């Protein structure tokens, strides 16, 4: 296998950006990595993939965490005939010590291709490529080292979060603690698929939304605040003196609700009209910061196009205080899951389900009152399902 020529892939070893081809070659002492390179070269020549649908593979007692993958050229590439992915639940915020990283590497060297993704789209550590017989040994070594599998299939997918208060002055709640808490609280939902389809939870500490929760999480928990933006006028004057920023043009004029006044030395904010967009704070981090009455907005329903079209999450709870043990959110999750599990169609995401039954009906079913923050405007059509019963 090692003398296989890969002229097309070799072209991707040049250039300033780190090369995935070089990474695969670095793992070439693994026969699986060598065959992966071979089959990938074949794909580059033929312009088509050579992977088949996943089969049902996994570890005992879990329904999720492993993505079965088989090659359609097993005679030519026997070492990747089975090439399953193992999703390992990442620590909140993707923090590691060198020791933890080496432990993961040692396990994966013994039982798989030695190739990883740091990290997969959902946030998991991805071990890329192993055989069915290796799954139980991997799982037992992972759990021994304090790691567990992540989600896959129609289950709670591995929750993920931004760096939050560990490294960010804008974190309006403790995203790391929240994600750790809900991940631990819903281990059964994460490992044993029992929903109509996948359910993702992503936690961003502020409206900059560094984990893109509004675009891809069934529940997006985005930090915000209710009181005034804090202003250090001396620091405002320092920005003005430095001159890198035109405060009127770049900050005041870019405010989406025009709630900032700047008279050349003092900056004021009409806080009741501030929509907490973060722009002024992003632009002048030394002078402006979020208020102190902090919490989160909860939005639901984001997804990519399949099946009924892409959706962004929409507001469900305009403001909630984010304090352990997060009972309000857990109750909300349980109410949503109960309704959706009973009435959702197979492979219907929560966003599509809400569109099908109507947000008003959905709110009634989960016991939330409608509030104007949930919509950009009231309806414009008169086709109202008056409910007189």
């Amino acid at each position, binding site marked *: 296998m090692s003398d296989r020529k890969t002229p097309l892939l070799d072209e991707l070893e040049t250039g300033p950006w780190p090369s995935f081809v070089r990474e695969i070659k670095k793992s070439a002492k693994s026969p699986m990595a060598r065959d992966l390179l071979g089959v990938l070269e074949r*794909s580059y020549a033929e312009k088509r993939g050579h*992977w088949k649908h996943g089969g049902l593979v996994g570890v005992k007692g879990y329904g999720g965490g492993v993505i079965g993958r088989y090659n359609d050229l097993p005679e030519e590439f026997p070492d990747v005939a089975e090439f399953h992915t193992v999703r390992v639940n990442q620590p909140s915020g993707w923090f590691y010590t060198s020791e933890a990283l080496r432990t993961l590497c040692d396990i994966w060297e013994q039982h798989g291709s030695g190739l990883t993704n740091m990290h997969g789209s959902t946030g998991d550590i991805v071990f890329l490529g192993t055989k069915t017989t290796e799954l139980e040994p991997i799982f037992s070594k992972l759990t021994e080292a304090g790691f567990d599998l992540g989600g896959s299939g129609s289950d709670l997918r591995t929750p993920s979060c931004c760096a939050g208060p560990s490294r960010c002055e804008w974190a309006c709640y403790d995203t790391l603690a929240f994600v750790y808490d809900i991940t631990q609280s819903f281990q059964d939902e994460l490992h044993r698929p029992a929903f109509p389809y996948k359910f993702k939870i992503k936690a961003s500490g502020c409206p900059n939304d560094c984990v893109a929760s509004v675009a891809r999480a069934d529940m997006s928990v985005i930090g915000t605040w209710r009181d005034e933006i804090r202003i250090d006028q001396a620091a405002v004057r320092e920005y003005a003196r430095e001159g890198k920023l035109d405060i009127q043009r770049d900050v005041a004029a870019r405010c989406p609700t025009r709630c900032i006044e700047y008279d050349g030395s003092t900056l004021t904010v009409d806080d009741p009209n501030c929509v907490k967009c*973060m722009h002024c704070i992003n632009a002048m981090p030394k002078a402006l910061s979020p208020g102190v009455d902090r919490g989160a907005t909860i939005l639901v329903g984001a997804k990519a196009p399949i099946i009924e079209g892409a959706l962004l999450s929409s507001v469900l709870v305009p403001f909630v205080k984010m304090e352990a043990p997060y009972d309000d959110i857990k109750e909300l999750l349980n109410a949503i899951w109960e309704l959706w599990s009973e009435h959702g169609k197979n492979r219907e995401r929560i966003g599509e389900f809400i569109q099908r039954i109507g947000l008003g009906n959905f709110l009634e079913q989960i016991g939330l009152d409608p509030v104007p923050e949930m919509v950009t405007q009231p309806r414009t059509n008169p086709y109202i399902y008056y409910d007189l019963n």
Partner: protein
Amino acid sequence: MATPAQVAKRRTDIGPPHYEKFLPPVIRENYGKWKYHETPSPGVLVHVSESGARLFSVRAATPRLMSIETLRLFASLADEFSGGYLRFTSRNNVEFLLSDGDKVEGLVARLRQEGYPVGGTGPGITNIVHTQGWVHCHSAASDASGVVKSLMDALFPHFERMDLPAKVRVAFACCLNMCGAVHCSDIAVLAVHRKPPKIDHGRVPKTCEIPSTVAACPTGAVRPAMVEGKQSVSVIEDQCMFCGNCFTVCPSMTMADPENDGISIWVGGKVSNARHEPMFSKLAIPYLPNNPPRWPEVVGAVGNLVDVYARNARPFERMGEWIERIGWSRFFKLTGIEFTKYHIDDFRHAGESFRRSTHIRQSPEG
């Protein structure tokens, strides 16, 4: 069979390790107390705590697909420079977390030397989030890693320099399933199929459940059918928009088509709430050919978009905000991209994007 002792030993449902044990002392001591941050050079962040303590984060590129040899290299660098502490970002960069600012320069140099350059902060282009492509996915209409590598080689100056009006988030997905937030990116590169599924009627009865296959089609194009006396399905080809959802539930309806698969490009999406609300990316280029190993057409098209944006946008304007200011007609003119019937929505609620006013940026040149 496992013995009772072995069963008892098996640990399940333990969840991930607690993050606290992976936080460096400077973070543990200043958790939630950060006051502000600065970016002294591209790829280096300095967070300053209320206590005055400083945390230096050095951000380096990774190809996401990484060998354990590279992870061990990162571990050694962390031991040497950052007390053994590191993290990864939501866009697949690696970050070393230093409490000693004097070590930053040495680490930056070492990372460059090892081939993992430092950058990706502020108004520039950071790592491209992407999917598995031909490396691991059954429904990929293109490779992912190869397109991303080719793009980032070309966009690399913007990774090392913060030289754009605002950040430009680029994302890649190898089919319409779009693992990751591709559909809300400044530039979304999306591989597409363009032909209806090829049905293997011999295998359908063995591999597919007919009702769920029929239900999988968003347009009702898949119908139950008897073919040569066997239960199968048929596809009303005019109704198929090549989403591949039938293939997801029925492996005997293959979408892969080397001749016709290719790449589309979408622009102007964002997820942040800063200034403008989050928005979807919109279609810029319906189709470019799949041309491995370097995808020159895709690299050229994305480079052009970035260049035109860089020349015309104002400070802080994301791609989508810039396009809203100048209008889509000028966007197509400035970029030289042809506007076609494919740009006009004809799926559900399509009329929402029709212009229903005379608010048009008229021009004497037409």
